[in-house]
C-alpha cells in the first residue's frame, strides 16, 4: 500500500473495517519521508520511528474509536510541541524546544492523531513561496523545480507526497491557501478566532488563522471539527459554538439556489498588480466558474472596490505587528542572536518599526486600520446578496525556485487575492481546479465569518463533480 492513495476518510474506514492498521500508515509515511524529504526539503524534524510505532501499536489495539485514530499528521513548524523542536523556519529558533504544546496539537493528539513530523516553512511565515525558509526552499510535490508555495510550504508538499494524511498550517495572508493550490490540495483558512492560536508562534496576531491542508473537503471538515472551538487560553477565539461540519458536507446535492459572487475588481486589480493573470490560469478559473454554473449556482457580479487598497493595507498592518511580535527574540533567550534573522524578517521588522514610529503612526498604521474597516464593510455588503465569493488564489501557478528571489515586491503583489480575506477575518477555502502543465492550481471560495459549514457544503458538490484530488503527483 502507499498512503498517497488514501484520504483520512478512506483510511479510517479501512482501519475500522479491520483491513488496515495505523502501523501500515506510519510505515508508509516513513518510507515516503525517507524517499523524498531531502530532495523536496519537506520536513525539519521527524519523530523517532520507535515512538511512532509504539503510538500506532496502542491505537491498533484500541478500536479506532476517536475521530482521527491513527491518522498521521504533519505540523507546520510554527506549532509548539514538546516532542520535537519548534523553529518557525528560522535559524533564530534552530534549537528551541518548547516546554508546552499548542492547543491545536493537544486537540489533535487527544483525537488520536499521530504527529509524525514538522514541516518546513518560510521563516516566521513570511512569504508566499516557501523560499524564505532559513532551511532552504521546499519543492512542489508536482514538479521539483517549482516552489511549494508558502508560507506553509512543507505542510502542503508533505500531504501531496504521502508523508501524512493531513497537515496543519497558518494563514496570515494566504499561507495555507497558496501552497494548497500549488499542491492540488484543499486548504482552509477559517474565520479569525475559529481555531485557537495558543502555542502557535505569532506572525501578525490580528491576521493569523490556523487551518489545515487535506486531499478532500471531507478530510478538511473532519480536521476542523477536531481543532475548532473556544479556547480559554486564547481571548480572540470566537464565542460561537462549533457547527457539525461533517453533516453539513452532505447537506447539498446540487448548487441550485446558491449565489456565487464574482468581483470584476479582482481581475482588473490582479492585472494591474501583476503583469496580468497567467492566461492558462485565467482560462482554468473561468472553466471552474463554468462548473459552478453547471451545478446550478447563480453567478452575480459584486463590487469590492477597496480590493486595490487591501494589499497596501496588509503590508502596513502585517509588518507593524511582526515588528512587535519578533521583539522577544532579543538574543538573550532562545540560543541564537538577532544576526540569525533572515532578510525577509529584517525587512518586515524595519518596515513595521517605521510604520509604528511616533510621527508616522497616523499616516500608516492608523490609516491602514481605517481602510481595513472599509474592506470589512465591503464584504459585509457583498454577503447580503451572495452566499460565497469566487476568486483566484494566486495570479499564477507555482513560480520556479529562485524566480522572484531578487524581487520581493512582486511576491507581495501575488498575495492580492488572499489578503483581503485575512483583513476582514473571513473564511477562505482553496480548492483544486486543474493543472497548468505539470502544475496544479486552485480556486478560492470566500465565505462570511463562521460560514465554514456552508463553504464545505458548496465545495463538496464541486469536488464530487471535478475530482481533481485524484490526480497524484508523478514522483
Amino acid at each position, binding site marked *: 500500500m502507499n498512503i498517497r492513495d488514501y484520504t483520512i476518510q478512506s483510511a479510517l474506514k479501512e482501519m475500522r473495517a479491520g483491513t488496515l492498521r495505523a502501523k501500515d500508515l506510519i510505515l508508509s509515511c516513513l518510507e515516503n519521508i525517507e524517499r523524498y524529504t531531502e530532495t523536496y526539503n519537506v520536513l525539519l524534524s521527524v519523530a523517532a520511528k520507535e515512538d511512532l510505532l509504539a503510538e500506532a501499536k496502542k491505537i491498533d489495539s484500541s478500536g479506532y474509536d476517536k475521530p482521527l485514530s491513527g491518522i498521521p499528521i504533519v505540523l507546520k513548524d*510554527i*506549532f*509548539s510541541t514538546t516532542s520535537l523542536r*519548534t523553529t*518557525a523556519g528560522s535559524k533564530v*529558533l534552530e534549537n*528551541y524546544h*518548547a*516546554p*508546552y504544546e*499548542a492547543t491545536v496539537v493537544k486537540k489533535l493528539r487527544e483525537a488520536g492523531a499521530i504527529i509524525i513530523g514538522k514541516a518546513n516553512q518560510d521563516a516566521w511565515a513570511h512569504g508566499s513561496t516557501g523560499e524564505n525558509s532559513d532551511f532552504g526552499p521546499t519543492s512542489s510535490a508536482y514538479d521539483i523545480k517549482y516552489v511549494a508555495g508558502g508560507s506553509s510550504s512543507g505542510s502542503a508538499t508533505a500531504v501531496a507526497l504521502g508523508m501524512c494524511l493531513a497537515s496543519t498550517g497558518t494563514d496570515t495572508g494566504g499561507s495555507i491557501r497558496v501552497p494548497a493550490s500549488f499542491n492540488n490540495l484543499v486548504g482552509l483558512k477559517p474565520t479569525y478566532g475559529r481555531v485557537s*492560536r*495558543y*502555542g*502557535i*508562534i*505569532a506572525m*501578525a*496576531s*490580528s491576521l493569523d488563522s490556523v487551518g489545515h491542508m487535506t486531499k478532500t473537503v471531507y478530510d478538511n471538515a473532519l480536521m476542523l471539527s477536531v481543532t475548532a472551538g473556544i479556547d*480559554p*487560553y*486564547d*481571548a*480572540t477565539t470566537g464565542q460561537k459554538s462549533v457547527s457539525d461540519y461533517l453533516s453539513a458536507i452532505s447537506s447539498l446535492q446540487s448548487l441550485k439556489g446558491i449565489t456565487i459572487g464574482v468581483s470584476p475588481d479582482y481581475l482588473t486589480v490582479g492585472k494591474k498588480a501583476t503583469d496580468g493573470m497567467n492566461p492558462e490560469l485565467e482560462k482554468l478559473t473561468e472553466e471552474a466558474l463554468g462548473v459552478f454554473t453547471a451545478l446550478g449556482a447563480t453567478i452575480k457580479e459584486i463590487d469590492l472596490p477597496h480590493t486595490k487598497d487591501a494589499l497596501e493595507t496588509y503590508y502596513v498592518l502585517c509588518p*507593524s*505587528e511582526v*515588528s*512587535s511580535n*519578533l*521583539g*522577544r*527574540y*532579543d538574543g*538573550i*533567550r*532562545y540560543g541564537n542572536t538577532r544576526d540569525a534573522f533572515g532578510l525577509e524578517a529584517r525587512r518586515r521588522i524595519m518596515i513595521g*518599526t517605521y510604520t*509604528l*514610529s*511616533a510621527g508616522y*503612526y497616523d499616516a500608516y*498604521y492608523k490609516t491602514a486600520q481605517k481602510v481595513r474597516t472599509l474592506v470589512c464593510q465591503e464584504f459585509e455588503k457583498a454577503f447580503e446578496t451572495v452566499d460565497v465569493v469566487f476568486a483566484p488564489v494566486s495570479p499564477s501557478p507555482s513560480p520556479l525556485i529562485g524566480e522572484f528571489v531578487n524581487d520581493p515586491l512582486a511576491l507581495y503583489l501575488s498575495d492580492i487575492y488572499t489578503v483581503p480575506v485575512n483583513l476582514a477575518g473571513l473564511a477562505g477555502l482553496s480548492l483544486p481546479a486543474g493543472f497548468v502543465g505539470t502544475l496544479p492550481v486552485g480556486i478560492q471560495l470566500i465565505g462570511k465569518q463562521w460560514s465554514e459549514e456552508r463553504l464545505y457544503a458548496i465545495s463538496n458538490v464541486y469536488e464530487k463533480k471535478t475530482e481533481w484530488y485524484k490526480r497524484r503527483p508523478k514522483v
Partner: protein
Amino acid sequence: MKYTPIIGLEVHVELGTTSKMFCSCPADYFGKKPNTQCCPVCLGLPGALPVPNKKAIEQTILFGLAVHSTIAEESKFDRKNYFYPDLPKGYQISQYDEPLAMNGSINIKYQMSKIKNSDQKSKIIRIRRVHIEEDTGKLQHMVVGGKNVACIDFNRSGVPLMEIVTEPDFRSVDEVDQYVRRIQQIIRYLGISGADMERGSMRIEPSISLLDIKYQKSNIKDEELPKYRVEIKNINSFRFVRKALEYEIVRQTRLLESGVAIDQETRGYSETQNVTVSQRGKEDAMDYRYFPEPDIPPMRFTQDQILKIKDQISELPDQKSERFIREYGLTEYDTDHLIDELKTAVFFEKCVIVANTGVFKKANITPKIIANWIINKKTDLSINESQFIQNIASSLVVMTVSDEDIYSAIKHVLRVNVQAVEDFKAGKDQVKMFLFGNVIKELKGKGDKQIIMELLIKELRKI
C-alpha cells in the same frame, strides 16, 4: 525661594489579585523562590497569548470610581514596545489612549505650618488617568562562580499593575507626601492591594520642574507651565520621594539661577548617595511604538456593570471621618488618627459597641474616652475589644475619687491660697486655672477633671 515647584506623580500599585494579569500564575511573588511562579504566558514564550484578568480590571475601575473618575465605556489594551531583559515579550501590555478611568480627583489635607493642630487646608489634586498594565520581571545582580552576572526572576512578570497619573498639581513636597499617603489609604480601604512600599507593591515616579515665582498664583494655566520636566525613577519609600524631590529643587534652582535652561530628562534616585542621576536625555527619549494589542479584544462596560462595581465601594476614609465626628462627637484630630488605618477604625467601632453592652454599660465609657485611649496609649490592636474596654473600666475605677474627697481638697486649696481667691473675686477669672491645678495636685491626678472644675467654680462662687 524664587521658584515654585510644579510636581506631577505617577504611582504604580500592584493589585492583590490571586492570579497574574494575563495568566493563572499566582500574583503573590514576594519572598518566593525565583522563577517558580511562571508559565509560557508570563515568560513570553513563542506562541503564548494573554487572557486578561477580570478581577484586576474591576479593581482598577473600583479605584477609579473611588477617586471620582469617569469610567470608560470602551477601553482596550495596547502594546508598549521596548527592549529590556526583564521584559520577555519585547513589549509590555499596557493601556495608551483609552485608559479604564479618567478625570478623577482626590482631596488632600495639609498643615499650614509645622505646629501641631495648626490650621489644615485642603486641596484638590486632579487625577488624569488610571490604567492597568503588567509588571515586568526583576533583574538581580549577583556573583555566580566568581563572575558578575545579571539573573532574571520572572515571578513578578505579569503581576497586575495599576498606574495612577496626576496632573502637575503639587506645589510642595508636603503636598506630594500627603497625596501618596492618601492614595495608599484609599487603596487599603478598598482592599485591592497592600500598597506596601517596602515590598515594592507601590512605586512612585515624580516629575518636577520649577516655575518662576512671578507666576505663582492659584491657577496656573498649562501654557504657563515650564517647558521642561524632569522625571525621577526608582523610588521605593515615602522618605526617598521627599528626599529626591528636595534634592531636585535645590539642583534645579541652582541651574536656573545660573541661567542654565533645563532639558527634559529622566533621572534615577540613588538612596545611598541621596542624589539624582541623569539616565536619559531628551534626544534618547523612548519611542514606545504603541499600538492596539491584537491578542485581546477591546472591552466594553455598560452602566449597569459600572454601577455593580460601584456598589462594592465600602466607606472611604473621608466619609468615615465625617461620620465619626457626627455620630461619636469626636474631633477631626481624633478621627485623623482613628481612620488612618482601617483596622484601627474597625477596632474603635467594635469597642464602642462593647462599651455599650452588659457589665460595661454602667462604667459610662464614652466613644471619646475610647478614642483617647486608642490614640494616646498606642494600643496594641491585637487584643480583643472586651479586654480593652475592661482595661479602661478598671483604670477609671482607680482614678475615681468621691465627691467628698474633692470637696475637702478644694477647701484645702482655697484656704492656703487666699491671695488667689481674692484675685478671683476681683475679676481675674484666669486664676481659677491656677487653683484647679493645685486641686489636681492635691488629688494626685485622680478624679474626673470636668467634675473637679465644676465643683471648684461652685465653691468659688460661694465665697
